């Protein structure tokens, strides 16, 4: 391994639901600044793995170290505050709020004004609000939605909604951004735009971990690939190495044969 330090260290992680081992014995690490992809057949436990990372599920066993501190089983909002943000496989926006407000909500963990500030409209509160709004606008522009800030989220086009989710996640100034199938349902042009966006996210200094089904995208964007099958990590490495790995081919073919 090269000299880059590990941002995320997962050791022997498991998430069981009754008898079902959705994730089991997963050990991996993500280095700061890389784009890593998580692939695997449907039902391989990829999303469950993300859910444990982000605090949706507590995890059954094992450890997760983020930036040096253990985070497994911590509440989701605390994990966001520590620097992990994510998007969702099925887009989950605050559909009745405007695009701008969606991004502003994303800054929750990086702001602090509570009851008295808003009620009394203190100087500190107004400063913070202005800052939240300015950063949200900057992020909207960053994902290419500058003009659509006042649209309600539910009225945005599908591709725009995906990018809005990215902007909302970035608003919490994450060190690690987790994208769950960011190109799902997109046409090739939209996918290409999104790949470009992911690269620019990395250029901001954010490490990216994504689940992706389109192998073309995986090859194109990722530095490293992890392969899951039946909740277990079966391979990891550079994209070319992994696709040549017989176990991986078997996992994919096995699924297609089934």
């Amino acid at each position: 391994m090269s000299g880059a330090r590990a941002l995320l260290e997962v050791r022997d992680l498991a998430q069981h639901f009754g008898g079902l081992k959705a994730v089991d014995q997963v050990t991996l690490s993500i280095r700061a600044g890389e784009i890593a992809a998580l692939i695997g057949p449907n039902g391989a436990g990829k999303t469950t793995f993300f859910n444990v990372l982000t605090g949706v599920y507590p995890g059954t066993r094992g450890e997760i170290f983020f930036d040096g501190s253990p985070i497994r089983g911590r509440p989701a909002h605390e994990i966001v505050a520590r620097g992990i943000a994510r998007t969702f496989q099925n887009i989950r926006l605050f559909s009745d709020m405007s695009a701008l407000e969606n991004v502003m909500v994303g800054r929750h963990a990086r702001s602090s004004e509570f009851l008295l500030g808003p009620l009394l409209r203190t100087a500190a509160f107004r400063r913070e609000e202005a800052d939240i709004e300015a950063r949200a606008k900057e992020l909207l522009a960053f994902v290419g939605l500058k003009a659509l800030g006042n649209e309600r989220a539910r009225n945005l086009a599908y591709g725009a909604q995906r990018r809005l989710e990215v902007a909302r996640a970035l608003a919490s100034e994450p060190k690690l951004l987790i994208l769950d199938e960011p190109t799902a349902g997109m046409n090739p042009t939209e996918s290409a735009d999104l790949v470009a966006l992911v690269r620019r996210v990395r250029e901001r200094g954010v490490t990216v971990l994504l689940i992706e089904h389109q192998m073309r995208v995986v090859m194109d964007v990722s530095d490293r690939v992890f392969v899951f099958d039946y909740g277990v990590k079966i391979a990891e490495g550079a994209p070319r190495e992994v696709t040549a790995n017989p176990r991986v081919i078997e996992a994919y073919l096995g699924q297609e044969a089934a």
Partner: protein
Amino acid sequence: MKGLLHSRRTQWVLLAAALSLPFLARALEFSFLTRVGGVVGLLMLLSLGLNVTLGYVGLFDLGFIAFYAVGAYATAILMRAHVAAPLAVLLAVALTVLIRFLLGLTILRLRGDYLAVVTMGFGEIARLTFNNLDALTNGPKGLQVRPWRPLAFLGAWKPLEFVRKESNVQFYFLIVAAVFLAAEASRRLEDSRVGRAWVAIREDEVAARLSGIPVREYKLLAFTLSAVFAGLAGALFALWDQFVTPESFIFWESILLVAIVVLGGMGSIAGVLLGALILGGIPLLMEATLSPQWIDYRYLFFGVILVLMTLFRPQGLLPSARREAELSS
């Protein structure tokens, strides 16, 4: 669009219009108007409270009237213990908030309609407890409250001399002030990180949590804060009508509040105020205007109006406007 509704000018115009009502009533020799204004005002205060939980956060509360009752009973009991009225109001609000906080702490993990049923159950438990604890509440016979004339001093000024004796006018002014403060506080919270967090929870609880919002705490906050409005309304009610009995806090009142918030527009302050004006004002208006042979049809008409309004404006009369930001810069 938020700009206009919340522009200082519109607010002051509405406030001035509201404050002039007792003078209009006096000019028309129809003092009933002031009473209607006060009753609608109390309903507005309550609905603004429910709007915080149901409107912003989407917590379905079918027992909100219980906290109106707690505020009213606490005030009545404190007044009987010869506590000064302003202090009694303060303590009553504090107690209401405390009880709602404790309830929220235990039941807020329930979701959706299960929460609705549990709050409905709590509402009934509260009413029946007030009815059964005769030693404290005098049971069904109710509690008398000694008179309090909060703004009698206004009468020292010649043009307002009539206010000295008119408890309706005094309480009307007090209620208008409370509604104004409550609406302003709602607006300020709504237009802040706190309000955005609440609406985000309503829209998608999971996404809210994964955007860094401590959902449990923010639900509890909204649930608890709404009790300030309910407790205050209850205290004002007890002092104004000088009589508190369990009959005033039946399940129907909680339903009416839900209807106001939903029909006004969930999370929309202007909508909720308008909803309270319409749903609270219509029965009183009918009482005043219907001829004797139609007076019995009052609530039949009310039901028809409720159904028609829902069918024609299912999203509410004034659905909440979203923040409009200057995007060009």
